[in-house]
């Protein structure tokens, strides 16, 4: 067996190994030698061997067999062996190992050693990996050492005490008095340790704050000394006298001055002095200024001081040093809510940082810019944001797009501007727009009734240019389906109209349908749009029929279902086709406070609205229901499956999109609304409950129940309204009334009353009870007032 080589020799040999395999071989040989050496009795080379093992450990090889050797070396009387032993303990042992307990006794002995360097080893190791039990054991020793005369030991004991307080918070009281007395020292190391210790004590134990607030004048005095003193070569860093100590003192002042007027007053002058006098051309000065700014913003400082702090941050933004720019933006972000006006003054600089090279700086600038959007600056700021969107790094695009949307929603100066912005985002970054945005965009388009023509023209152009961006394609398909007649008319005041024929439009939609780039949802949009066009065009209805029937055998189940239903609409229910596919009413938001984009507020009401509605569209019944569900299905441009996640998923910035659309069906609250009984015979009761009432329409639900002993089957309702009123009946929840009121059948009707005539409705019921069919007619002359208006 070759004799073990010296440490440096071994390192050289390992480094010269050309392959991983070779290196492993060398190391295995060495480790075997080291193990053998460990087993031998005390020889002179123990510390060398452990050092070699530590090197091997750093390369990533297992070294656990060295743990006991560490323990033995620590107990050795020779300093060189102790030193390496303690180093090994810090590297190989952690508090979870059993061996770490074995060194507690050695540490205890070494803490009272005659040589301060041995004491220092013990203190260092304790502060690095001392477990809770070790800390409890040795806390009194540390407290004693805090009161020695030797500054070298005192400063180390202070930091050791910090570790003890972190591990065993209950021992904090032990150090309260000692910590205070340490502040009278002149030695910077001890002062620094004392400040750190007091900071830790205050953070762990807020009840100690009043006790330590009394030292604020002392801290101010020390700080003044540091700031005003002349050049001290020992502690000077780039013109700042001991920046490490200054920063720690400022941090402690922050904790002490928080929520306390008296303490804040005492430090006001000092903070102003530091803020104005510190030279920030180098990092050290900037670090001190940064800490000062953080402190000013956190305590109860006076207004002038706060403005000074924000101005410092603004100055930082102009710095050449990237780190300083980043740090200032982080701080500005924290205070943008509370000191909004002060930060607004630096908006120009912040927006300029959008063009910075560094990705982190860009991200911060984006978040800040979005936070600074207000009604006054929306136009100019949006220009910058849109510019940024076109050249920003891919990971920021989704965030930018949704930020732009929510800002546009809150502060749009006009509908035309809002639509323009939305279209711009769609065309620039359509692929990064989140899926939840699509319904809210569609809702936005429907509300801007005068701009339908303009919108559909623009979207058609964009669609023809590029069909790869899913969100854009979805919105475009929906608009073409809905407003195709406006497109084909070929005239538009707002923009250059496209001259298209019906074939062109159908070609475009078919391209989307057939393209491999289109997602299943997008193809659903395209198919429905094609179908809707059948009522809006005159000549190519047959082409639509053929497209629809082709997709009747499509592999995608959703498309197939849609195609089959549309086919049925053509064949059997052609008389209903026009009504089913007519122009949709304006989807409006339910409550006025809705568009502030505060998710937490909107979540709760939407949840109650969404859930009952979703179950309504889910319940399976006859084919008539399926067809009528086309209306329900085509109301929500997304499939029913995407409706459901809307209440569950976190509400996007633009407000709850899914909830708005479902509001068509009215707020089906579980609050018992006043309902009027319109029919009560043969055990069948039909109540009318008004869900929603506006000037031009009423949404009501008919609720039927059965008090007889047997089920009533084939229950259907038909309704008729005066000529000028439009009626839409949703699918009933079922056609069986269970006996003894065990269940109900509900059916929602919506009356659209643009001419504001008095509303009347004739309802015809037919059902089968006890083997015989019954039919009855009832007239409803007045609708009860709804609970929600």
């Amino acid at each position, binding site marked *: 067996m070759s004799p073990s080589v010296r440490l440096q020799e071994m390192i050289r040999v390992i480094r010269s190994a050309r392959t991983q395999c070779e290196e492993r071989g060398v190391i295995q040989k060495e480790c075997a030698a080291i193990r053998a050496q460990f087993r031998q009795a005390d020889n002179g080379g123990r510390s060398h061997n452990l050092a070699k093992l530590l090197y091997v450990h750093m390369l990533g090889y297992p070294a656990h067999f060295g743990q006991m050797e560490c323990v033995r070396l620590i107990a050795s009387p020779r*300093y060189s062996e102790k030193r390496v032993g303690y*180093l090994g303990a810090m590297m190989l042992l952690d508090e979870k190992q059993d061996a770490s307990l074995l060194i507690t006794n050695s540490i205890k002995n070494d803490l009272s050693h005659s040589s301060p360097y041995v004491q220092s080893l013990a203190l260092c190791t304790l502060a690095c990996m001392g477990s809770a039990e070790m800390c409890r054991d040795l806390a009194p020793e540390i407290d004693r050492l805090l009161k020695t005369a030797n500054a070298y030991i005192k400063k180390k004991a202070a930091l050791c005490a910090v570790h003890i307080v972190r591990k065993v918070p209950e021992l904090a009281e032990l150090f309260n008095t000692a910590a205070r007395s340490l502040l009278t020292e002149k030695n910077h*190391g001890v002062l620094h340790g004392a400040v750190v210790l007091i900071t830790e004590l205050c953070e762990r134990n807020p009840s100690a704050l009043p006790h330590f607030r009394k030292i604020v004048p002392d801290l101010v005095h020390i700080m003044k000394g540091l700031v005003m003193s002349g050049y001290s070569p*020992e502690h000077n860093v780039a013109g700042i006298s001991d920046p490490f100590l200054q920063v720690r003192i400022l941090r402690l002042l922050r904790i002490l001055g928080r929520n306390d007027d008296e303490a804040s007053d005492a430090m006001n002058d000092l903070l102003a002095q530091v803020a104005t006098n510190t030279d920030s051309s180098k*990092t*050290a000065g900037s*670090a001190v200024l940064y800490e000062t700014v953080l402190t000013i913003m956190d305590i109860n400082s006076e207004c002038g001081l706060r403005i000074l702090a924000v101005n410092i941050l603004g100055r930082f933004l102009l710095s050449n040093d990237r780190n300083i720019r980043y740090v200032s933006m982080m701080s500005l972000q924290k205070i943008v809510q509370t000191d909004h006006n002060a930060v607004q003054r630096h908006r120009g600089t912040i927006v300029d940082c959008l063009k910075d*090279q560094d990705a982190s700086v860009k991200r911060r600038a984006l978040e800040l810019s979005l936070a600074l959007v207000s009604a006054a600056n929306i136009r100019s700021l949006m220009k910058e944001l849109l510019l940024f969107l076109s050249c920003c790094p891919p990971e920021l695009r989704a965030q930018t797009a949704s930020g732009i949307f929510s800002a546009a929603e809150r502060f749009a100066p006009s509908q035309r501007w809002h639509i323009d912005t939305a279209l711009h985002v769609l065309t620039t970054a359509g692929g990064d727009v989140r899926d939840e945005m699509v319904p809210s965009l569609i809702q936005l388009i429907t509300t801007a009734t005068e701009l339908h023509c303009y919108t559909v023209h623009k979207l058609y152009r964009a669609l023809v240019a590029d069909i790869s961006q899913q969100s854009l394609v979805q919105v475009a398909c929906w608009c073409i389906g809905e407003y195709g007649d406006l497109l084909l008319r070929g005239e538009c005041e707002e923009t250059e109209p496209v001259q298209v024929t019906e074939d062109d439009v159908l070609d475009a939609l078919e391209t989307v349908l057939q393209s491999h780039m289109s997602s299943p949802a997008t193809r659903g949009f395209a198919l429905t749009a094609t179908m809707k066009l059948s009522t809006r065009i005159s000549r190519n209805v047959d082409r639509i029929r053929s497209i629809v029937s082709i997709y009747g055998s499509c592999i995608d189940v959703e498309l197939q279902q849609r195609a089959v239903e549309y086919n049925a609409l053509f064949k059997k229910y052609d008389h209903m086709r026009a009504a089913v596919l007519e122009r949709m009413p304006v989807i409006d938001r339910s409550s006025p406070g809705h568009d502030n984009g505060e998710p937490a507020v909107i979540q709760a009401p939407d949840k109650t609205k969404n859930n009952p509605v979703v179950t309504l569209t889910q319940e399976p019944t006859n084919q008539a229901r399926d067809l009528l569900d086309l209306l329900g299905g085509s109301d929500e441009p997304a499939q029913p499956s995407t409706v459901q996640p809307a209440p569950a998923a976190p509400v996007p910035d633009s407000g709850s999109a899914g909830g708005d659309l479902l509001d068509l069906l009215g707020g089906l609250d579980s609050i018992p609304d006043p309902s009027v009984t319109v029919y009560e015979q043969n055990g069948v009761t039909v109540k009318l409950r008004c869900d929603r009432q506006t000037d031009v329409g009423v949404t009501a639900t008919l609720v039927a129940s059965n008090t007889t002993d047997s089920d009533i089957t084939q229950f259907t309702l038909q309704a008729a309204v005066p000529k000028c009123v439009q009626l839409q009946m949703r699918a009933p929840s079922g056609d069986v009334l269970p006996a003894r009121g065990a269940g109900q059948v509900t059916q929602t009707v919506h009356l659209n009353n643009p001419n504001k005539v008095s509303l009347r409705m004739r309802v015809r019921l037919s059902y089968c009870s006890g083997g015989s069919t019954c039919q009855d007619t009832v007239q409803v002359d007045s609708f009860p007032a709804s609970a929600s208006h």
Partner: protein
Amino acid sequence: MMRFLLLFSRQGKLRLQKWFTPLVERERKKVVRDMTLMVLGRPPRSCNFLHWKDLKVVYKRYASLYFCCGLDDKDNELLALEVLHRYVELLDKYFGNVCELDIIFNFEKAYFILDEFLMGGEVQETSKVTVAKSIEASDMLQETMEEYMSKPAF
């Protein structure tokens, strides 16, 4: 407080690791891997601050070595840059124009110097001179220096 301090080369080889919080071996390896990947993947002129989990990461490149430390959320990043710089200055003073090879072949000295400068994740001595003096005195105490350490070039 500083949670850890790592030194690694441009090829990702670890030269020094100091942990100020208790972590098992597996977790330590994961942190080292993550830090190396993140820091080495940064473009040349980016800012020296990163976010990783709930920590701030500050790194600085000196010649062929990356000095990387993880901080708590409340710590001052600019000051951490100064801390790293101070450590490099101490190494430089001790080894005389320190380079990566010095730290490789005398890694235990690098640890000893670090232990005189930082403790428990905090700065323990703010004066360069005092730290240097303590190291010198400790070295004097140590017998048989010549065997495996090259003489410090003061």
